[in-house]
């Protein structure tokens, strides 16, 4: 045991915990509407800030946002930042090397203020730049789940 720890290694984490979160009516509508290939936002009646996904309370001005404030967005947006991610957490507390780097983009949607953090696909490395016009690429079969949004891809 010379120079070595006498601490016994105990592995009890991660534990399989199930949580049930109420998503609320706005988020439920957002998720269900994805089935029809539409992205919804919520425009604050107090300050005009538009949240995606919709929220029922405005953090900017603390107004209540109601279902009448839900707006339909184009699903198009602008890449305001991006990174080629070479590593990701492996779920067990370590970083793993990704087989192929993935592009993670920060996307500002048309007529919205929130920024979405999404995988970006179908862009040639030399075309990847801030300001690139992008749109949602939908999964082939949508079913009303967050996973219906496959990634963002260049417009046209």
């Amino acid at each position, binding site marked *: 045991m010379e120079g070595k720890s006498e*601490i016994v290694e105990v592995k009890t984490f991660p534990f399989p915990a199930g949580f049930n979160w109420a998503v609320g009516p706005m988020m439920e509508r957002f998720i269900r509407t994805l089935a029809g290939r539409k992205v919804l936002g919520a425009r604050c009646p107090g300050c005009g800030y538009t949240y995606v996904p919709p929220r029922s309370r405005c953090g900017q001005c603390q107004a209540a946002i109601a279902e009448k404030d839900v707006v339909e967005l184009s699903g198009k947006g602008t890449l305001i930042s991006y990174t080629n*991610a070479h590593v990701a957490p492996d779920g067990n*507390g370590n970083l793993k090397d990704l087989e192929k780097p993935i592009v*993670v983009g920060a996307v500002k949607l048309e007529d919205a203020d*929130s920024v979405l953090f999404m995988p970006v696909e179908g862009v040639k490395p030399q075309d990847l730049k*801030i300001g690139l016009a992008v749109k949602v690429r939908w999964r082939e079969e949508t079913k009303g789940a*967050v996973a219906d949004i496959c990634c963002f891809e260049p417009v046209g």
Partner: protein
Amino acid sequence: MRRRVAIVGYAQSHHQHNMQKTREDMVFEVCKGALRHAGISREDLDTVITASTDFLDGRTISSVFVGMAAGAFLKDESKVEEDGTFALYYALMRVLAGTHDIALVEAHTQGSTMNAHQVSCFTLDPQFDRQIGVLNDIAAAALQARMYMNSHGVTDEHLAMVAVKNLSNAAANPWAHRKMAKVSVEEVLGSKVLCDPVRELMMSPVSDGACAVIIASEEKAREITSKPVWIEGVGSCQEAYIRDRDLGRLESLKTAARTAYKMAGIKEPAADLDVVELSEKFAHEELMAYESLGLCREGEGKRLIEKGTTGKEGKIPVNPSGGALGADPVCATGLVRVIEAAKQIRGEAEGCQVPKVRRALAHGQFGMCAQKNMVFVLGGNGS
């Protein structure tokens, strides 16, 4: 402030990758160390505040065995989540309220328990971002870095220069984790690309470590030490959730600093502060912080690193200890900055000492892309 409060003792661990020590032992050692440094005993403490995060500790109510190791047995005690500077703020309020005179503040994380980057994913919105599954603190930092760099013509070399400054400063710090006396810009740029432009040496290491600080009311402080370090100003502010903030700037740090400066009577930070200790988890955050702290104008952060203004011999040294790039025992990192700043004022900073420090700033943060920020202005004429 109505009542003056001073730092009268402190201690920190030798931060390292895997300490091979129980959390209880690690906490015990720094708390005993801080009491010894102050020359007081457990009986003198009125209250004990600890800081940690249950997720990082790998158990709920993780303070259960920490409080006793910190000397809190049958005393007023509380725990604050996240950074140790938040715990110091809480302890300061207790002393300012007049209900307590002497407080011990302890903070710790053992990164070897559960990787902090993994834990960062659990801080995201479970209904959306966690389901999309591509965001973590490193990717988020990379997005922030590129946004900031794009706005102000900052290059990868500028980020590498920050890393070179801090990692070589850390080499002179006996408590630091990542010490690289001879590191070069090329070596930093050549280190492993994690999420571009962020390389391995531009990101803080995951450390095991703890620290403790003892604060006291003016009357008690003068009894305890001839070199009190006064808390002259404090400010705290936080950003909205990552989807709804401007990632390209550290607006909450700006507000926190403005609040602390007002309290401390600081008008020109670059002239009034003698040293700054930052919790920069990524190199680009340091450049952004120069601007938010008012050490330069917006977009001019790169000039300070180019000109060596923030080097150990510069006009306003930043992170002479090596900062968070030198060691990052997550929840302890901000409180370590407070200790490093206090050491500078007392003339106890060993190889990291900067001459003639009267006023120092210490910064703590928590959350992705520095979501929550805390600024302390410390003062004294100890050395």
